[in-house]
């Protein structure tokens, strides 16, 4: 039904658009988000959002407008706005025409189970987490979200794509009135693949393992990074990955293609062949998705290259349809036995760039950090600040666990990394 609506609006825009080139993107997102804190619901919202974005060009002069309605009167105004901007604009020396008809890979991003999942059922999920927290004399906070999105892209030069996706997500933090604080979060395409019991069990096991934290000093430690920490840390690569910045010497990826920069244990890829993972079928600028090895066994294979820069250097443009960091078979027990001692880290927080040229970031541990020794967890420790270079950490990977689907389009393993650099401590 939405695709028909979109096609009708697209027809209307085509008929009213006089520009030499255009690219039209539309989406509809139906979202309900129920937020809870301290064992009560504090915010609960629902509604449908629309977005319509039109990029136009006269020669190489470009203009763009965006509205949030499919109303024809509004669409007409939007076309005029975009066209007026383009007509009055200066030429763009890096302009590339919109993409033409392309074979879009078939993706399976929608689940009817999620579409049908009701607001009441969302509240029931929260009820279970709150009941569990109350039993433990603890407080739980988080958000349950259900989102169904349709998106459509059509270009003057022939590209046309339609995609529907669904997502169910629950993020929950359980804390007591002292220092214990643990979190689990997961998003899935199909709500039937989400087990609240399993998630609560995991939350409880993380929470129960927490003790009064002991102070430890800053320094280098062996770390077991659980999946959420792994993705939050290594996803900074995606910001630093730009091909133009690499070629111009702005980033650490200068002259990196073909070199082993990350060590043999690190592979970051996008793949449409993983049955348990969703993938964007096409990008907002009209590229069909394809499988990409960004980093394979440590070797940099491909960097993020937008269409205009790809045109300039005669490379194939790309985008990031999903994210997989390749795992292995090691269990946490094996990881704890592999080294004498170290820290298990559930999550990182507030990660920011320290130096793009050095590939260095900073951030803090969060949601549970445990000290282990001789293969066993001993006690919790106070949170720490790290300053670490992404490729140094990757080179120091000793063992990889199984890949975990932490989000519908993301799977990453637990990692054992030696000599991870912590630069400071905090008070809790």
């Amino acid at each position: 039904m939405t695709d028909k609506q979109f096609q009708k609006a697209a027809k209307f825009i085509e008929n009213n658009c006089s520009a030499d080139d255009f690219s039209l993107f539309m989406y509809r997102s139906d979202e309900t988000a129920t937020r809870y804190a301290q064992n009560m619901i504090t915010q609960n919202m629902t509604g449908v959002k629309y977005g319509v974005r039109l990029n136009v060009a006269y020669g190489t002069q470009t203009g763009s407008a965006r509205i949030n309605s499919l109303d024809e009167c509004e669409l007409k105004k939007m076309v005029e706005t975009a066209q007026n901007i383009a007509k009055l604009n200066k030429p763009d020396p890096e302009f590339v025409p919109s993409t033409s008809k392309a074979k879009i890979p078939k993706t399976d991003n929608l689940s009817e189970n999620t579409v049908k999942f009701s607001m009441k059922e969302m509240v029931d999920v929260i009820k279970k987490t709150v009941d569990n927290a109350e039993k433990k004399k603890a407080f739980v906070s988080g958000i349950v979200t259900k989102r169904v999105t349709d998106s459509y892209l059509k270009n003057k030069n022939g590209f046309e794509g339609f995609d529907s996706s669904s997502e169910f997500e629950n993020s929950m933090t359980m804390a007591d009135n002292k220092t214990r604080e643990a979190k689990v979060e997961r998003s899935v395409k199909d709500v039937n693949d989400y087990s609240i019991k399993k998630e609560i069990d995991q939350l409880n096991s993380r929470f129960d393992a927490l003790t009064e934290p002991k102070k430890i000093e800053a320094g280098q430690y062996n770390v077991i990074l659980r999946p959420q920490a792994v993705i939050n840390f290594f996803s900074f690569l995606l910001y630093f990955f730009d091909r133009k910045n690499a070629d111009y010497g702005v980033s650490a990826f200068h002259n990196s293609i073909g070199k082993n920069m990350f060590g043999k244990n690190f592979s970051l890829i996008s793949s449409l062949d993983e049955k348990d993972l969703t993938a964007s079928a096409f990008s907002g600028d009209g590229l069909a998705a394809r499988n990409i090895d960004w980093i394979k066994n440590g070797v940099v294979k491909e960097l993020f290259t937008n269409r205009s820069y790809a045109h300039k250097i005669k490379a194939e443009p790309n985008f990031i349809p999903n994210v997989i960091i390749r795992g292995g078979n090691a269990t946490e027990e094996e990881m704890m036995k592999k080294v004498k001692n170290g820290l298990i880290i559930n999550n990182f927080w507030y990660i920011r760039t320290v130096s793009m040229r050095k590939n260095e970031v900073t951030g803090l541990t969060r949601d549970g950090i445990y000290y282990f020794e001789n293969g066993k967890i001993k006690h919790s420790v106070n949170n720490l600040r790290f300053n670490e270079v992404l490729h140094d950490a990757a080179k120091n990977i000793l063992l990889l666990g199984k890949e975990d689907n932490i989000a519908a389009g993301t799977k990453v393993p637990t990692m054992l990394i030696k000599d991870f650099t912590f630069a400071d401590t905090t008070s809790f």
Partner: protein
Amino acid sequence: MDHLSTALNHAQSMGAEYADIRIQKTTRETIFLMDLSLKNTSRNVEHGYGIRVMKNGAWGFAHSNIFSNDEVKKTVEKAVKVAELSAKIKKGKGLTLAHERGYIDSYSTKIQIDPFKVPLSEKVDLMLEVNKTLLNYSKIKRAFFMLDMLNDDKYFASTLGSVIHSNTYYINPMISATAVNDKDSQTRSFDEGGYGAGWEHVLKMNLVQKAVQIAEEAIIKLEADEPGEIRRRDLILDPNHLGLTMHESVGHPTELDRVLKWEADYAGVSFATPEKLKKYRYGSEIVNFVGDNTLSFGLATAGYDDDGVPGQKWYIIKDGILNEYGTTRDTAPFIGENMSRGCNRATYYYDFPINRIPNLYLEPGKKLLSPQELIADTEDGIYIEGRGSFSIDQHRVNFQFGGDMFWEIKNGKKVRPLKDVLYKSCNPEFWNSCDAICDARYWKDFGVTNCGKGQPPQTARMTHGAATARFKKIRVGGSK
């Protein structure tokens, strides 16, 4: 206007204890110039309404972009149904709202030249001149200019009888230049944040001259030394740097929803808990922080907040002591407050309003003092200008900040530029180490337009400000 009363009447007929409707049209024009390529010149509109109802002591919220009485009623019904579901998981009688009355009023940002009516060529010509100026230096390899203009046109009505119209604007030019040699890359930016004004604000800035400065300083940084091992030195921080420092280490920890742990799952909580009010020494005696949603150019100023509470001015930290929080109608009762400080704001029509940092600034020093005199009075220190890397823990205790330009100070003189400087500090050490603040002549605002918080995430704006200030014996040095 019809829709306002339709919504409120319908909500009341369905048993709502309180309801409001916010019809909001946000228009944003963005021009993004990357090197000499106009990557994006766009005008975006988000127009719709959000209806918030309280029933059985719980919130429900629904939004729509369809303007008809039928759709307004349907949206009310959704919001009521959502509230009824929310009420299944509450504590005691649920949420209550701090006292407020109804207002019939309007507010507009004072602008002289409407930025949306300035011819595009005037804006783009200026931007191209700036980026050409930057790229004229052979070592400058990347130039970036983003011009961001926003207008929020909002009607708010509530079952307290309020009908409030606000029409606010901001404008924000951001420029950066990246210098590269074979060993390093360094970026220097001009970024004063957003400002509640029209195009006249940009005309006063002399951006081409600023471009010359940032290009030259990016190149200076490229050749500069690193600061060496971390050790304790005095820091002199300029207002453009302090804006973000106070945002992270004072603004967020004094939001009452964080104090109440409502943000525990995402943005985090706060060390500045209620038993510390009126007692806790947050900073030295010269440290006074004011929450001020009456500031004429302030980005959080809109006459009223999205609870329909008037903009106010109050001390958050007074003579170094934690004095009060920024609050909302639904959080204030939890600490026994009967009135809200008016800090509830939503970003777009479809967002649920949440507790936000108000315009928040450090009062200038009372004795005459210039930054030059402060430098002359410092033996061993680093002078930091502008924003850099910043990170803080989820209780708002430990933080690490960089900056955009650094000068070593020895025996009262700026002796050499430095690069890649980081300092590490924490609450309450940092504000207690503040021993000098320059006077009102050197006070300067800094507008934040991208404060991320909430679930689903929202981006709010607020204005900060300070005069250059000194912090004694802070751990500062290079990174890893």
